[in-house]
């Protein structure tokens, strides 16, 4: 634009080398993300059209065979069903518990930091450790265990929590682990949202004669918490999709993994890296799972109208 022909290098570097500096700052991160997220995704899609047993290099092109095999595979579709049931349990219960904790802690005048810490503390625990406490101490079935001991005081029979499938008591074990570990984290998100609600709104409501309690909660607090609630619901669903650690640690033992309560990731883990090492089939399952997650997440975001107010708070 100015006189003379700026060389290609100069043009790429931009005014005051800004483009260059942008890539100095952002480049390493983007490169890593490309190599370790985009490339694996692409490779996975590629691999899913091939036969690849015990090897990471594809041997024979099989088209959509891996996909049809996966979709016809009862173990895989059952795992999707397990996941759906798990989500149906965990998302509403965590949501309600963490919101209730936040509402109660927020109204405390003293010891707020203490209660916040206590409920948040499990977030420092790993699923491996939590699963150990649940499996070996609280819900241990026959010989010992806190749950059976306490229930025994009331004359209840002993329950083999993790191996009872009818009724499916193992869900109680799986859901309570996650509730304990995660509720505090989401409580903190809700607390942050609650503390941003202007006190004048509550004063106005009081002037208008709204009774404290349910009316104020329904007409002031919950609508003001909408943005936080949407974020929490999205995070809960995404995290439920990642469920692996507690299922693996609670249910598998030296004899293997029981056929029930296998979420998709556990199933894929055994397919791709277990005995068969069937990476082609595993990749097809991973791609299917990624597609389902994308559809659900985008659908949920659209439903809640997320993205419209993007950048607003920035």
């Amino acid at each position: 634009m100015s006189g003379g022909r700026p060389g290609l290098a100069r043009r790429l570097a931009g005014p005051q080398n800004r483009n260059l500096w942008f890539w100095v700052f952002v480049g390493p991160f983007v490169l890593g993300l490309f190599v370790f997220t985009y490339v694996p995704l692409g490779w996975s899609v590629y691999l899913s059209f091939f036969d690849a047993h015990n090897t990471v290099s594809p041997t024979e092109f099989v088209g959509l065979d891996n996909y049809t095999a996966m979709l016809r595979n009862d173990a895989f579709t059952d795992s999707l069903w397990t996941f759906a049931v798990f989500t149906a349990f965990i998302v509403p219960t965590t949501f309600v518990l963490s919101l209730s904790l936040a509402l109660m802690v927020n109204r405390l005048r003293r010891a707020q930091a203490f209660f916040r810490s206590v409920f948040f503390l499990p977030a420092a625990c790993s699923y491996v450790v939590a699963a150990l406490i649940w499996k070996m101490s609280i819900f241990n079935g026959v010989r010992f265990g806190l749950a059976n001991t306490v229930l025994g005081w009331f004359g209840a029979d002993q329950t083999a929590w993790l191996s009872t499938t009818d009724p499916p008591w193992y869900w109680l074990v799986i859901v309570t682990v996650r509730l304990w570990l995660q509720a505090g984290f989401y409580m903190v998100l809700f607390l942050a949202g609650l503390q941003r609600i202007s006190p004048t709104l509550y004063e106005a409501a009081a002037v208008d004669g709204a009774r404290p309690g349910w009316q104020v909660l329904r007409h002031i607090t919950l609508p003001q918490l909408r943005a936080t609630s949407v974020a929490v619901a999205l995070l809960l669903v995404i995290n439920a999709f990642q469920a692996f650690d507690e299922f693996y640690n609670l249910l598998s033992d030296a004899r293997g993994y029981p056929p029930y309560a296998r979420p998709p990731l556990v199933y894929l883990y055994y397919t791709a890296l277990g005995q068969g090492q069937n990476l082609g089939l595993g990749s097809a399952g991973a791609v299917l799972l990624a597609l389902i997650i994308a559809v659900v997440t985008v659908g949920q975001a659209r439903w809640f109208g997320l993205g419209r107010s993007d950048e607003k708070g920035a």
Partner: protein
Amino acid sequence: MHDAWVRVGRALRLALLIALALLFLVPFYLLVRNGLAAEEDITSPDWTFFPSTLHFSNVTELFRDSTVPMARSLLNSALIAVLTTLGTLLLASLAGYGLARIPYRYANHVFYAILATLMVPAAVTFVPSFVLVSSLGWVSTLRGLIVPTLFSAFACFVFRQYFLGFPRELEDAARVDGLGYWRTYWRVVVPNTRPVFAAVGTIVFIGAWNSFLWPLVIGQDREAWTVQVALASFTTSQVIRLHELFVAAAVSILPLLVVFLFFQRWIVAGVERSGIDD
């Protein structure tokens, strides 16, 4: 009359909170109780709140047991958690700053490409990532355990939002003094935004220490086990020495509890300022 109801309501709420708080602390209590008890006290059908005797020697027994790579796995976990935290802070903060502050025509496109990876739960890519890492020959190496986890879109997002809210005046003053982007970043921005580094660092450290699926997939040799994988191998093995298992679990969360209690308020502050609920 009305006042009385309010007071009753407050008392009920406090009672409920105390009950819930105790319930939340029970698992921690069990961890310590079983870790310091004799095996018979854990498996006894007549469960008691306090074990009959306390065995502090369980800790030394754990580290002397040659069948359990406890010291090695703790060292691996510590190395992985520290290096992952430092690497993530460096890479994500630089990227977040560039995205927030350096004008570039395609900056938003780059940002959306980064955000999109948040939609792909990391766990779904474990099959292809394993394929990639094993073809690089990185299975059972620290590189394989650390490098692929360094690029956290979440951390980058938090840094970008935070830097966008950072007052421009300070940077402008630095520019007037003739500092470029690089020196402005290191001399002005980083020293003035330490809380967000502490918040993201703590979250990343806890995540790295606790992560399980990736170390399970990549750390195939015993030498490369993290403490989580070592614990899990305990719980799924046939012969279990329960008191040892519990004391190992207690030891494994000790470093985290220290970090956690020390940095807790930064985590809360980080969440409040991350824009995650805006």
